[in-house]
């Protein structure tokens, strides 16, 4: 982390950004998506970002998750400034501090549930293979899939696949969980199940959860709701 800068960072904050700017598209199609957004997420709390389609929710989430680079503004992960860091540093920070859950499960279909959950751990390399398997198994049990650890991702239902994705996001015990419409592709029953799992496990581990959702029921069950419109929080 050669390009990191330490700043005053309250101990309960896992994530903070200031004045984030982001343009998307080229030429005449260039759109000012984020117009100076500032945001912070505390450990052990679940924050929902809501707003109409195209308001910049997902773009903000990808910036916070270091999957994208801002055109302006700054992002701190834990107490480290990451907005202008190298691809290598951003990648390392993603692996160590951030877990993602997307609208679509994005599991590797050729692998089993257990192998999918083990993937982030393999890269981080903190645990031995036996410890990785044990942790993956315990996470799958926690999301109610203890009996299906060796099933291929293709052999699981949509709800089960998303639960595996939640387990995978928690694999490296990240400080931050970023979820982009995690229940958007699920029925009501599975939506509730996945949301409960995500928030319960994150709270148990003191993780900050930021989720983007269109679902008002899900949003209302979060600790904090931040509505967005036209690239700004309102």
């Amino acid at each position, binding site marked *: 982390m050669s390009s990191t800068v330490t700043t005053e960072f309250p101990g309960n904050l896992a994530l903070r950004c200031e004045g984030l700017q982001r343009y998307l598209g080229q030429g005449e199609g260039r759109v000012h998506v984020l117009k100076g957004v500032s945001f912070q997420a505390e450990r052990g709390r679940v924050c929902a970002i809501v707003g109409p389609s195209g308001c910049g929710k997902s*773009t903000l989430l990808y*910036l916070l998750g270091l*999957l994208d680079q801002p055109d302006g503004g700054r992002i701190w992960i834990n107490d480290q400034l990451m907005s202008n860091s190298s*691809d290598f540093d951003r990648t390392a920070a993603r*692996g160590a501090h951030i877990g993602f859950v*997307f609208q679509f499960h994005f599991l590797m279909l050729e692998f089993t549930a257990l192998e999918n959950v083990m993937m982030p751990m393999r890269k981080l390399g903190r645990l031995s293979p036996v410890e990785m398997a044990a942790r993956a198994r315990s996470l799958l049990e926690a999301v109610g899939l203890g009996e299906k650890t060796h099933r291929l991702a293709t052999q699981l239902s949509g709800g089960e696949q998303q639960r595996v994705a939640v387990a995978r996001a928690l694999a*490296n015990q990240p400080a931050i969980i970023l979820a982009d419409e995690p229940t958007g592709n699920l029925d009501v029953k599975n939506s509730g199940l996945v949301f409960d799992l995500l928030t319960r496990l994150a709270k148990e581990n003191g993780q900050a959860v930021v989720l983007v959702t269109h679902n008002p029921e899900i949003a209302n069950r979060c600790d904090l709701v931040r509505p967005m419109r036209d690239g700004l929080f309102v």
Partner: protein
Amino acid sequence: MLMSLSCIILGVGLFVVTQAATTGFEQFFIKTILGADGAILIQDKMQATQRSIAAGGYGSGFAIQSKEGVKYVEGIDEPEGLRHILETFGNISGISIVLKGQVDITSPLKTETGMRAYGIDVAEHLKVSNLAAQIVDGSLADFQSNLSGALLGREMADRMELSVGDSFQLTALGQTRRYRVSAIFETGVSDIDRYRLYLNMGEARSLLQKPTGASFIQLQLYNPDSAPLVAEHLQAVLGYSAQPWQDRQKSWLEAFRALSVASGITVSVFTLIAGLAMFNTLAMIVLEKTKDIAILRSMGYERGDVTRIFLWQAVVVLAIGAVIGATVGVAGTYAVSRIPLPINGIFKTAFFQVYWSPWHYVEAVSTAIVMVMVASLVPSRRAARLEPGDIIRGTAQ
């Protein structure tokens, strides 16, 4: 991926079969000519010719000697002296002094003129030729123990209707002597099998009335491929012309080389197709797997990891393709070697000639490795360059 695998198997297999088939005839031809006439022939004495240019006007007595060219004097006067010098060369594996002369042959049924009698010492000639393996009837032991024994070429024996044990007469320089067929040899080279016969050296000297000297010295080398260099060196040291087998058979060797280039082009096309198939497959996989790439990147996998995953995929396909391709190459080469193809003239064979060489497999696999890895590198690097945010945003749309 199955398409790429098929192309690699086909590329490696065809490379091996084509190389084995192309070099098969060339190697068989080289083996035949080395077995018949050795690697180098030392035959004519070289004499530098000079001319004088009067430098101080006519009659001044002062002249400049100028080298004009080389004159060749047929035969070797002191073959034993040359042999002693040649024995000091480490890369020469065999030396045979040969006396050659033209004779007429008469069997009970007919007479043929213009035959070539070679006087040899069998023991030393076996070190410079493949004569022992060329015997198709009779025995060399009989030839060695019987001074009036002779070795006849297969075509000559057939034309003269002579078999092992039959008597015949040779006439040279007005004298006629009787000999007995000790054995019949066949080199496969029509010109040799039809016109050449071997006599013991003593008998040849008597018949050809050459009590001393030799027509040429035949040499074999531990490394026949080095013959041109060795011949050049010998020529400079001995003052005799030394002709390597590559010069003697230049036209045939050039024909084989042209054939080799033609097959090389064909094989390169196949290998190129294998590389293109690999490129196409990996490019398609990169397109199909963009979301997996994004997820891996979101989990902390680096660009290098993504490149390695795709290259590893190529390596696995390449390894499987190389093993199956080499097996196909072995089977194909064997199948080709069983194709009946009677050839007689420059060599004799009943089947298609192939050359089994591990280097063909090394070359085939090496070529496949280069082509596939080059073809895989572009899609792999493209995969690594993809920004995870762009992919996920695109997928979500």
